[in-house]
């Protein structure tokens, strides 16, 4: 089995349009959640979100590209450019033939769907743009990365709601670990922060109207975000041979299904994925210094997640740090695990633990060290990144310092 390392990272989200900007915001505990700017916002009951602002697609993409790139594809390509540039890789010959792209998204081209439903249903138009289908499909972003960078190996999209990008990164990890691919571009993207996307979430009555406060007794729901996180996963020997900078090692991955409820999380399902990732990585429990929580800020998730962590780690649960960066960038749905992996990389590489901001009051059912409100310096050796999706599909990645 090969060792798998991360040699490139890219992002765009409410905290920043690049990895350095995002990490700076996480270090400062800055909140990217604010009033939504979109058409018909007065018809929404939930008027806040972690929206990407200051990004002008027309300054980056030409007219033909914009005709084909939904917002989620635009996010993907922005983040992929940053990640692949950092890796220094160019794909040709055998490297191109064997390397692949595995990305996660929950909804794919939702902005395109929203706009075109409006056109045909609301405005009564009988004709839509010819590229609606290739623009909205869930694999569009993956295909455009493949096309743009000449990556010709195993490539596909994974959709498992809020676990999509962790599941995708898990697949990419396996491709490299097994020796099937020397390099995999992976991560995820989501732009569900459109009118129809928010309307659908409103219906479930789990959204907060005033902020995301994970683990705090005063939490009252999740806040949606949007964005992308893209990474270059590479065979360690391949990376070392070319002298690439290594950000962290992906050491293990595990998945589980609750097989219980379509929306309510299960402590057992989460715990099985967490302990599975530890044993897959061969990392002892007491070596985990940080967990990037799923931490949605809903009543149900946060107490279930804390109970699962307490069950798996026993007394060490009180010594490790667990924070939810969703408090800052919002819940990026299918992209969330990818955006959050950045906090794990920062913890391992820079020794800075991203905080859970908005923390007001302890909840006895979430009695773990959630790094409230201020980032902390700490030297840690290993970290976990949790994702627990609606539908009970759990995916946990284990990372190690290199």
């Amino acid at each position, binding site marked *: 089995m090969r060792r798998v390392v991360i040699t490139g990272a890219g992002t765009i989200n409410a905290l920043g349009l690049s990895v350095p900007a995002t990490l700076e915001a996480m270090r400062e505990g800055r909140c990217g959640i604010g009033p939504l700017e979109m058409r018909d916002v007065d018809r929404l009951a939930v008027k806040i979100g972690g929206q990407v602002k200051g990004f002008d697609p027309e300054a980056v993409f030409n007219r033909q590209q914009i005709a084909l790139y939904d917002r989620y594809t635009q996010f993907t390509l922005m983040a992929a450019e940053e990640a692949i540039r950092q890796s220094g890789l160019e794909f040709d010959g055998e490297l191109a033939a064997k390397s692949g792209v595995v990305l996660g998204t929950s909804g794919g081209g939702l902005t395109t769907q929203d706009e075109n439903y409006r056109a045909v249903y609301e405005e009564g138009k009988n004709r839509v743009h010819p590229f609606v289908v290739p623009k909205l499909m869930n694999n569009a972003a993956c295909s455009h990365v493949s096309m743009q960078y000449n990556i010709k190996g195993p490539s596909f999209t994974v959709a498992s709601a809020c676990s999509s990008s962790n599941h995708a990164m898990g697949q990419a990890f396996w491709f490299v670990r097994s020796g099937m691919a020397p390099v995999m571009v992976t991560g995820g993207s989501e732009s569900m922060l459109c009118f129809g996307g928010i309307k659908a979430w409103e219906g479930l*009555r*789990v959204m*907060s109207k005033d902020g995301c406060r994970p683990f705090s007794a005063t*939490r009252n*729901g999740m806040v949606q975000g949007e964005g992308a996180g893209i990474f270059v996963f590479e065979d360690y020997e391949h990376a070392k041979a070319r002298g690439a900078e290594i950000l962290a090692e992906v050491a293990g991955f595990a998945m589980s299904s609750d097989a219980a409820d379509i929306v309510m999380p299960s402590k057992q399902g989460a715990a099985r994925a967490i302990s599975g990732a530890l044993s897959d990585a061969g990392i002892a429990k007491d070596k985990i210094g940080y967990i990037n929580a799923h931490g949605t800020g809903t009543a149900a998730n946060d107490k279930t997640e804390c109970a699962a962590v307490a069950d798996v780690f026993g007394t060490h649960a009180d010594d490790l740090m667990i924070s939810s960066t969703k408090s800052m960038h919002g819940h990026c749905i299918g992209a969330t695990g990818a955006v959050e992996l950045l906090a794990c990389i920062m913890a391992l590489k820079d020794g800075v633990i991203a905080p859970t901001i908005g923390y007001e009051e302890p909840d006895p059912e979430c009695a773990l060290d959630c790094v409230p409100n201020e980032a902390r310096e700490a030297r840690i050796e290993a970290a976990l990144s949790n994702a627990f999706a609606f539908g009970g599909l759990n995916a946990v990645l284990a990372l190690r310092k290199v």
Partner: protein
Amino acid sequence: MDIRTKVIEILAEQAVLEPSDVREEMTLEELGIDSMGLVESIFAIEEAFDISVPFNANDPQESDFDITSVARIADGVERLVADQKA
């Protein structure tokens, strides 16, 4: 149909019961309506009366809308309908 009868009809449908089997002192638990069933019932109530019910599934007890019994739910709906007319 008056408001209380309609509320009971909606809750009965959710609970897969006849409206005549639903008594006002019953709780949602007794009716077998879980958290998802409750969210659906509130949606049906909002649609039936064209009102907006202040309810957050994260903390049903803390919401401004009392759901402790069928009677309390019907009281709440009556109040919201009256407020809307006022």
